[in-house]
């Protein structure tokens, strides 16, 4: 009896395997012919520092409207993570990095990097400032829930510079993997204060508010953008170059 059951189960699982396999093969086939027959559909992957994802999303939407058939996919993450993905051969066509370090780390896959936006750091608090944060020194106040980015991630390194220059030893509750997840925790009101990029915080209004760092911070962050060569050294695509130009107009203006 159990033998019969097993046979039935085995047959059923082969069917499932075939179904999955044929779906995969089918999908590949459609994709392949689409590219080969000159269909105008194509995808541009933009690896973007998580803190700049919101404005870059708008650039993507505009470029898609200008260039029929183009689909822009954003890959927002910590710039350091993105640099590693690109160095490992990720198919990104454009890289937008917080600070020059991650851009330098991908070597000559970046073509002619240039500054596309500048920013500075602020104290980000949930709407209404429930923790009554006034100064940078509040980062060390007991009972306050404090977050910044992990070491090695640009937003974490800049935050350490800023807080160090203020002479504050913060009591941190979480070190987030990128600026996006840090902002999310402030937005959810789970953190009382976090060290974040100003533009990103302003974009999250009214859920999140800016408290100016006191003492004032002279930490400046420059975002660099570059069209990328393919992993095989091929030249950047027209779409990638157009994206870089569009972003240069939209973001710095």
């Amino acid at each position: 009896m159990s033998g019969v059951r097993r046979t039935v189960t085995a047959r059923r699982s082969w069917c499932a395997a075939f179904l999955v396999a044929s779906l995969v093969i089918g999908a590949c086939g459609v994709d392949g012919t689409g590219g080969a027959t000159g269909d105008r559909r194509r995808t541009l992957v933009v690896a973007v520092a998580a803190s700049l994802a919101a404005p870059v999303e708008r650039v993507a939407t505009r470029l898609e409207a200008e260039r029929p058939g183009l689909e822009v996919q954003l890959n927002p993450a910590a710039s350091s993570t993105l640099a590693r993905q690109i160095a490992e051969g990720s198919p990104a066509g454009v890289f937008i990095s917080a600070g020059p370090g991650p851009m330098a780390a991908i070597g000559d896959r970046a073509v002619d990097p240039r500054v596309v936006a500048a920013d500075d750091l602020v104290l980000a608090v949930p709407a209404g400032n429930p923790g009554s944060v006034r100064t940078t020194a509040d980062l060390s106040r007991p009972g306050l829930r404090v977050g910044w980015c992990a070491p090695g991630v640009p937003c974490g390194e800049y935050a350490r510079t800023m807080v160090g220059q203020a002479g504050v030893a913060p009591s941190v509750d979480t070190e987030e993997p990128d600026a996006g997840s840090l902002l999310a925790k402030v937005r959810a009101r789970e953190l009382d204060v976090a060290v974040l990029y100003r533009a990103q915080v302003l974009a999250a209004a009214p859920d999140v508010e800016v408290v100016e760092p006191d003492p004032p911070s002279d930490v400046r962050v420059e975002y660099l953008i570059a069209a990328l060569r393919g992993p095989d050294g091929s030249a950047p695509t027209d779409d990638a170059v157009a994206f870089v130009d569009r972003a240069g107009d939209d973001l710095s203006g």
Partner: protein
Amino acid sequence: MTRPVTRPVTRPVVPVVLAVVGAAVLVVPVASLLVRVPWSDAVPVLSSPVARDALALSLLTSVTAAALSVVLGVPLGWLLSTGRGRVAAVGRAVVLLPIVLPPVVGGVALLAAFGRNAPVGRALDGVGVVLPFSAAGVVLAQLFVAMPFLVVTVEAAFREVDPRRTEAATTLGAGGWRVLARVTLPAVAPAVLAGAALAWARALGEFGATITFAGNLQGRTQTLPLAVYLGAQTDPGTALVMSALLVVVSLAVLVVLRGRWLPGVEPLRAPARARGRRTG
């Protein structure tokens, strides 16, 4: 190219090829990981403060989560196994949900319940219990994703317990509690062990719910998977060594499970009623 049919089972080429591709998908990444690990750095990396803290926290939280899974999950599995009809089906679906849910969603859900602006979280805050950004929060996240594995394993085993044995015990005058303790629980013990090991392995590997709900801080909430993810940002070598550690631990669990799994889950007696099984 026809072979004489000597046995009823033949293996057509296409599924075999697909099976090999499937196996490669599973094996190649792990094998490549082990090849790339800088083994000569293993000792200094594993004795670094970050790795030691992460390993200690991972062991503490995952063992705690597995123990809590047993304490809460065995009764839950038992209760489900006694249910019939729609109620049991709904109950089973609810228990299974965390297995199929993306762990990040689990983390968001935990925040919605236990975050400090959530009703339960605020009540706990009032009595001084803070779960987000704490080791207790890590355990809760692990419990959420891991306990279902134990529940489904144990529930299947409870259903396989031969009713004649419990009936015989009852006929001999044993009360419900005594039947459970003397007859039913010993019968499902192997499944409890298997389920606990599965739950522990799942808790050890937990990432998404943890980082979403408990955040990341060395020594407090940074478990091994979080340390691997964040180590990869700055020091890929460290991440590789810690990944290898997780692979080795997980393999060890599987090897132990191989012995426990069959008696725990496969019906040795009364072969027919193989229902209420794992996701399959």
